[in-house]
């Protein structure tokens, strides 16, 4: 008799730690000050963006340097839906996801004609097109951008503190939902297919996996998730402009660095990477371009000497996993 | 035999964890033709790859003209005088026939082999010199691959399964040319699946079986029974 075993000691510990951490974080409005809440919300958004990028590049093998297209799209959808559609901001955020996924369909049909690194640059071109189109939208501020009108801000909650709490919980909630969805996906047989694609695409294709279709679906889901987080980000910022919405540095460079340094192709990688990124950012404070130079150098170093990232290094050495995702075939002698 | 030209001294070769060659020893003298035979997967190509520098043995040593070439990269091994005719010909598809021959001379070793001489040896190549290498027939490609290796002016030629996919009549012609080359002083190690041809061309034979030398001896003295036993591991 055979069965597949997922859990290990480390994953049992990991699961407990994750649940504990989530509970502590959910209670944060009680123990954290406003600045810390804002920082935590920002950490959550980067963690989610990185996890989504990890799914796209680390599992489906689609290396995109243009996800800022959907971050910005999500942001502009928020402003458009609330200002012109009269939609409640929270509803707008939830709507932005499926809408971004819809937009990603024609985009995918175009850029999937490119392979490998040319695909990557293609995603960048798409992001540029989005940025240029946004600059042409005078109703949404054109090139200089627009601020979120006061009535819409008030619609979230009547007081400032309540707003901060709601946005914080929304950020935490969305992060938990996205990570949970990721976990469910990776545990499913589609997840198994993705792991196969990650390890050897040609072998996966010959094994009967419809690689093309799976990649397409993953691209859509990632675009949707990224769009949703994008609208959340710009709800937090209260202001949008084409350059901030579609910034390569903020939404791609940092996200990629986080994932690479943490570990591509493992669900825990972005978590480790986000923590390291923010610790560095807080301690190194205002170094501007030097900070980016260092991040670039560290990312290069990690890619050359620890291509599986810091978590990958540790996980491979000790066989750890924080979540029960591994698949171990157990053959027992019973009849 | 006097000082061998090439000596493989009890090498072990691995592909990752897979133990491809175990304690294999072999020697080739000047002007000699040695055949290496064995079933698929016996390790024949691995042996040639180790000799040519494409891979390096984990244990043991390979000595050419007295010098240890075990750790030498392939591009230095050919400069030392060992040229390979790879399995499956592997001509460069982006290059014409003549360009393929010219690139064989990349190592710039001095010697008698020039484009003219190669064209004398294989006139059919001269007729097709400007065609893309892929436009040649199997036999012609084999000739081009041999010519390309000759352009490196080697003292030792490694031939990896040149009989593969070739009609017997073409094969006979190619082996006839090979004997001309040997008469000029080049030694040959020929890995072959075609045992008959191998025994006809070589003076000494090694038979590999699952990574080890199962049988070796003068071609003239080995019996059919010996070879079958060694080949199939019976």
């Amino acid at each position: 008799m055979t069965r597949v075993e997922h859990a290990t000691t480390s994953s049992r510990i990991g699961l407990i730690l994750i649940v504990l951490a989530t509970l502590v974080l959910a209670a944060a409005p009680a123990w954290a000050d406003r600045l810390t809440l804002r920082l935590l919300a920002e950490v959550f958004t980067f963690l989610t963006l990185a996890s989504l990028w990890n799914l796209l590049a680390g599992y489906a093998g689609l290396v995109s340097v243009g996800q800022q297209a959907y971050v910005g799209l999500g942001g502009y959808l928020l402003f458009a839906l609330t200002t012109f559609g009269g939609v409640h901001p929270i509803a707008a955020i939830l709507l932005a996801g499926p809408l971004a996924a819809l937009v990603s369909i024609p985009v995918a049909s175009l850029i999937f004609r490119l392979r490998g690194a040319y695909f990557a640059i293609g995603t960048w071109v798409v992001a540029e097109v989005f940025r240029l189109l946004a600059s042409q939208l005078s109703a949404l501020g054109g090139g200089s951008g627009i601020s979120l009108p006061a009535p819409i801000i008030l619609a979230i909650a009547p007081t400032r503190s309540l707003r901060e709490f709601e946005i914080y919980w929304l950020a935490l909630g969305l992060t938990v939902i996205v990570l949970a969805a990721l976990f469910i996906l990776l545990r499913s047989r589609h997840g198994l297919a993705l792991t196969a694609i990650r390890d050897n695409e040609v072998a996966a294709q010959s094994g009967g996996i419809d690689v093309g279709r799976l990649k397409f679906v993953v691209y859509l889901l990632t675009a949707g998730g990224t769009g949703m987080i994008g609208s959340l980000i710009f709800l937090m910022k209260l202001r949008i402009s084409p350059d901030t919405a579609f910034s390569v540095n903020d939404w791609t460079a940092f996200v990629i660095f986080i994932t690479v340094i943490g570990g591509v192709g493992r669900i825990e990688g972005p978590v480790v990477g986000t923590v390291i990124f923010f610790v560095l950012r807080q301690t190194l404070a205002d170094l501007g371009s030097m900070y980016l130079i260092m991040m670039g150098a560290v990312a290069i170093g990690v890619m050359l000497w620890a291509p599986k990232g810091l978590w990958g290094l540790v996980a491979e050495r000790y066989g750890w996993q924080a979540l029960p995702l591994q698949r171990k075939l157990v053959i027992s002698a019973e009849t | 035999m006097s000082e061998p030209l090439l000596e493989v001294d009890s090498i072990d070769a691995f592909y990752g964890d897979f133990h491809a060659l175990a304690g294999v020893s072999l020697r080739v003298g000047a002007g000699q033709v040695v055949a290496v035979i064995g079933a698929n997967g016996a390790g024949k190509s691995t042996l040639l790859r180790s000799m040519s520098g494409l891979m390096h043995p984990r244990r043991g040593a390979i000595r050419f003209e007295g010098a240890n070439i075990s750790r030498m990269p392939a591009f230095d091994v050919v400069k030392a005088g060992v040229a390979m005719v790879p399995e499956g010909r592997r001509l460069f598809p982006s290059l014409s026939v003549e360009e393929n021959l010219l690139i064989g001379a990349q190592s710039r070793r001095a010697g008698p082999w020039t484009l003219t001489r190669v064209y004398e040896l294989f006139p059919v190549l001269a007729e097709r010199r400007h065609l893309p290498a892929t436009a040649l027939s199997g036999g012609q490609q084999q000739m081009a691959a041999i010519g390309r290796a000759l352009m490196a002016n080697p003292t030792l030629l490694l031939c990896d399964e040149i009989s593969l996919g070739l009609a017997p009549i073409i094969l006979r012609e190619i082996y006839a040319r090979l004997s001309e080359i040997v008469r000029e002083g080049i030694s040959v190690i020929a890995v072959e699946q075609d045992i008959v041809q191998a025994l006809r061309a070589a003076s000494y034979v090694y038979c590999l079986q699952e990574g080890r030398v199962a049988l070796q001896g003068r071609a003239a003295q080995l019996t059919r029974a010996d070879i079958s036993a060694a080949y199939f591991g019976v």
Partner: protein
Amino acid sequence: MTVWLNIILQGVLIGGLYAMFAAGLSLIFGVMRLVNIAHGDLIVLAAYLALVVTQTIGIDPLVSLLLVVPLMALIGYALQRGLLNFTLGDDILPPLLVTFGLSIIIQNGLLELFTADSRKLITGPIEVQTVQIAEGIWIGALPLIQFLVAIAVIAGLQTLFYKSALGRAFRATSDDQSVAQLMGLDTRHVFGMAMALSLAVVGVAGVFLAIRANFDPAIGPARLIFGFEAVIIGGLGSLWGTLAGGVILGVSQAIGAQIDPGWQLLAGHLVFLAILAVRPEGLFPKVAG
């Protein structure tokens, strides 16, 4: 009518510059299947190198080519052998991410050294000289020179690729690395030479960029994108196709700009996407992507 003819002509001429952006990119992809995300930033680096050279030695920018091009070639060789050779392999992630990291480093390094101020190199009277080629049709002398240089560069690369021993080495190595080594080619060196050549072309492109327009540390990615679009429009593997691609891109941008200045870049991107939709292999493809 002559207005449109002039516009199209401008587009054609800048297409030459785009083709130069693209040529180095195309070369590297052809030889080692590497796409250098930092390519555009290296063009900007070359522009700043030209700035430093002209300011410290006081020579004319066009003359600075004599220094910038060999310097960039050296940088290319060192970059390939010191860093990029270690990223090559079956996995596409390392070269992509390493060159992306390089792009960020170069951009911010230039920002630290030179600030975000816009610069431009002045060459003197040749900048405003025009040449009349037909009734009512005038083109700038400098754009014309640059277009002719682009043609010369591409012709030079073609000759090198198909008629020289180095070109043979490039083609053989790109076909089959192992067998190339069996022929005596040190592939590390071959790749180094390919990158040196690519950055030499980048050097030419950078100097002309510096003369032609304002530049600052952040404009690299856009140059990469223009080069990439020219390659895709023209078709992978064909250098003359890349020239055609550059021209088509330049003309699209020029027409777009005429319709509305804000539409200049957008027009180029939209034409690129249209060609990607309708003929993804490009107009004159030679190899499969």
